């Protein structure tokens, strides 16, 4: 080819090639999407002004820059143009209005998009932004697990408006995940599982074998999963456990108790019922189920052990949630007599509680097995710092890339973090041979909840100022005598105080002193009764002394108070605001009756208000009425956005309740609050 022609051809080729990128650039998809949005907006606009706003929208990359939030940049709104545009309700994606949630529409500028949805905020291309099958890009969190986003900032166990997350966290706590897996913020976690030193004085080899074969076949409430141990392994483990010497003090107590005569089963049954044992335990499946099934307890533990345990459960398992009841020696004998009489497995072999004659060789083998299976992570007797974290760290698990995960044999799974996590929880051993984590038998909903909780563990903690714990002040647990009482009666097993405690009770105690009258509380502690007709009696009669009850009530009154709740809401208000009659009218018009009982009439959902004045302090009532969800996020009482005057009138009305039947009690109650 002549040089000239070659030059011309090559120049043209050069020109065309160089033009490709600018042309590609000019055709970037977001430009078309923005034009489409403009047309859609103009067709939906209701006013000329709105129409002009749509028409004059420049075609440009939109971004939310969150300087205080890891310097995040979310460009999602480049295409998702209608997220905060009320005119885009129900519009086709990507323009649809974001559904209203706790943080939207108000929070876009503060928390952006990727904080909840994941994905690559910087991207302006759909697949990249959504992290579709790209190793270097964070994938979007599937909608099923969206509440994991809440958990990045909301670190407390229960998060209002995020039931799946809260459930997942509760399940992880109860299943003992943190025993084996290190997770930031759960370093001090200890499983409730009993130390195994005292097995030989508690139960027999036959029962233990049955338990090791499948804990949940023995007790459906068991948290311990089935480790699918072979018969040889079970034998070896049994020999090891029976070979461990029980602590002398406990052995002596059990031996002494075994010699005691049996009490009266009928009294025992009454005590069993009064003590509200089934607030936690079950009997033949009836009860709460957060503690062992007691239907065959007499065939699971020796009489001596049961007596000694009931007298002081904390000596046997310092981590148990069970309170130490103030039973007399006779009470305990009666209860165990009741167990012996009725709560036993009548089909069990006679030697079910016979101890094992230990073979040292097998015991040594069992010791190795015990260590290798990680039993000690839950069952060790030492403090948290001494137990080895048996499994891999779960810190940052929520930000792991699918490419960095070991899918092992599970080639069937989609290459995503969420499917990996679900499969890991569903059948952990399906990934490879020799994996040690057992299956906990969670159902699909539970798996979803746990994965949601896991995904909330980001690679790095969100900045301090975005972490949310306002409704969950740090628990203040007193020391000294009161602290002993707290521990003895295990208040925190059921009640929440600040960021700690169980969820069995509906009443957190963080600001109990601001809420209830001291006199009422003393009476309640001595003889509790359910305030909510819809709920079964749950607070046990702990048989505490009046002195103990007064001490506890006094502590609540003095220390567990919210300074933002005023003592006397009527101070400095007009006299008319105290119009109880007007309050009664409001009570009717607002429909409070639908949930609350006063006297004989009313709904069953909320707490009874018959003796409201004796129980509740007016300052708290006023505070609560102004914003029920501010007191606790999951309160169902509607927020009527009452003006101060109305809230005061209602408070005044509630202040009169209880005086009609029993004039003395409310009077003292009122005096105490002034």
């Amino acid at each position, binding site marked *: 080819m002549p040089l000239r022609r070659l030059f011309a051809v090559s120049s043209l080729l050069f020109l065309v090639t160089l033009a490709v990128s*600018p042309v*590609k650039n000019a055709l970037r998809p977001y430009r078309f999407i923005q034009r489409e949005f403009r047309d859609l907006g103009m067709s939906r606009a209701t006013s000329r002004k709105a129409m002009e706003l749509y028409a004059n929208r420049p075609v440009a*990359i939109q971004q939310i820059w969150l300087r205080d939030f890891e310097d995040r*940049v979310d460009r999602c709104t480049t295409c998702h143009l209608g997220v905060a545009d009320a005119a885009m309700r129900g519009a086709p994606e990507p323009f649809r209005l974001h559904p209203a949630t706790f943080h939207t529409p108000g929070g876009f500028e503060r928390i952006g998009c990727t904080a909840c949805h994941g994905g690559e905020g*910087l991207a*302006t*291309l759909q697949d*990249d932004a959504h992290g579709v099958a790209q190793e*270097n890009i964070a994938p979007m969190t599937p909608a099923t697990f969206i509440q994991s986003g809440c958990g990045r900032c909301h670190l407390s166990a229960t998060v209002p408006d995020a039931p799946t997350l809260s459930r997942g966290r509760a399940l992880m706590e109860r299943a003992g995940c943190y025993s084996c897996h290190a997770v930031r913020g759960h370093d001090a976690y200890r499983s409730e599982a009993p130390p195994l030193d005292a097995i030989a004085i508690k139960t027999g080899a036959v029962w233990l074998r049955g338990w090791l074969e499948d804990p949940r076949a023995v007790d459906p409430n068991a948290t311990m999963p089935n480790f699918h141990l072979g018969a040889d392994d079970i034998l070896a483990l049994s020999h090891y456990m029976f070979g461990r010497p029980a602590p002398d003090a406990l052995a002596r107590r059990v031996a002494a108790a075994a010699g005691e005569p049996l009490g009266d089963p009928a009294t025992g049954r009454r005590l069993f019922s009064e003590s509200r044992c089934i607030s936690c335990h079950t009997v033949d499946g009836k009860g709460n189920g957060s503690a062992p099934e007691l239907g065959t307890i007499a065939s699971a533990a020796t009489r001596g052990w049961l007596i000694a345990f009931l007298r002081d459960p904390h000596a046997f398992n310092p981590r148990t949630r069970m309170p130490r009841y103030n039973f007399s020696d006779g009470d305990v004998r009666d209860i165990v007599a009741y167990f012996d009489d009725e709560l036993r497995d009548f089909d069990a072999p006679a030697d079910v509680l016979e101890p094992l004659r230990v073979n040292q060789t097998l015991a040594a083998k069992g010791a190795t097995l015990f260590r290798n299976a990680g039993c000690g992570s839950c069952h060790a007797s030492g403090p948290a710092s001494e137990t080895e974290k048996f499994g891999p760290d779960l810190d940052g698990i929520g930000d792991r890339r699918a490419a960095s995960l070991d899918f092992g044999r599970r080639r069937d799974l989609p290459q995503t973090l969420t499917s990996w996590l679900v499969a890991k929880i569903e059948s952990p051993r399906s990934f490879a041979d020799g994996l040690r984590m057992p299956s906990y038998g969670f159902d699909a909903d539970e798996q979803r909840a746990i994965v949601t909780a896991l995904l909330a563990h980001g690679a790095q903690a969100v900045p301090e100022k975005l972490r949310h714990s306002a409704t969950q002040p740090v628990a203040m647990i007193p020391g000294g005598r009161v602290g002993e009482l707290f521990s003895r009666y295990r208040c925190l097993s059921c009640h929440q105080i600040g960021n700690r405690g169980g969820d069995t009770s509906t009443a957190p105690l963080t600001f109990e002193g601001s809420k209830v009258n001291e006199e009422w509380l003393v009476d309640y502690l001595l003889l509790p009764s359910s305030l909510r007709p819809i709920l079964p009696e749950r607070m046990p009669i702990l048989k505490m002394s009046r002195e103990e009850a007064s001490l506890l009530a006094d502590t609540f009154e003095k220390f567990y108070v919210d300074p933002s709740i005023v003592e006397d809401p009527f101070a400095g208000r007009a006299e008319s605001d105290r119009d109880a009659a007007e309050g009664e009218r409001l009570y009717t018009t607002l429909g409070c009756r639908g949930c609350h009982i006063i006297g004989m009439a009313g709904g069953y959902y909320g707490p009874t208000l018959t003796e409201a004045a004796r129980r509740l302090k007016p300052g708290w009532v006023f505070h609560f009425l102004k914003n029920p969800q501010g007191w606790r996020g999951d309160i169902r009482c509607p927020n009527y956005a009452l003006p101060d005057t109305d809230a005061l009138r209602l408070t005044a009305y509630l202040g009169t309740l209880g005086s009609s039947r029993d004039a003395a009690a409310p009077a003292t109650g009122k005096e105490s609050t002034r």
Partner: protein
Amino acid sequence: MRVSLASRVRGSAVYRSIVRHGTTATNRNRSLVVFENLFLHVHPVKVREKTLRFTHTFWLGGITLACAFILFVGGIPLMFYYHPSVPQAYRDMKELQYVVDNGVFLRNLHRWAAHAMVLVAVLHMLRVFYHRAYRPPRQFNWVIGVLLLLATLLLSYTGYLLPWDQLSLWGVSVGTSMVKEAPFIGERIRFYLLGGNVVSENALLRFYVLHCVVLPVALLLLVSVHVWRVRKDGGVQGPAGAERKNEP
């Protein structure tokens, strides 16, 4: 109209002050094109016809030079969008990809040109070797060529860290731990190179300065010498045996 405009421009005093040769295709004017031009005057006015043949040199040196030119010219705009700091350096890659117009094209071009330059420079060296073009009087130019190859490798390698992704970090970690193995001075060299004991933000800054200032200047100087020596040593040399056998 157009023609007259063009000729009027060519006739203007300003144009004449810049371009001194005439437009007609005389050999004098063609000579002037070359030696009146700073950038072309490294060429002789006339060249041997046979050196223009493709198989004579396969144009490998020229391709290397073209790559270097593309890297120089393309690298400058990229610098406008780059901060040698952590984690902004990585984010800048995303900005180039998602926000800056044609940013991803320029980054790709720079990356592929860098790889191509290393590859073609090696091929160029092999070609020179097998054509025995390193023989006197070209010995020194061969040495310059070896230095140029090293400079090219270093440029490519220092650039490798700049995106601050996993590939960069670990590529550089692996490479610099090889340096560490040098007896006596290895640790020291690595310490100076990285500005610390691990690949960190200091290393990023040092690599950035090396990549954008020190090594390009060195390369520019060496290339000038290299090209100038090519001419001084008698022009490009093709196959050594060619004269012996194929010429009539």
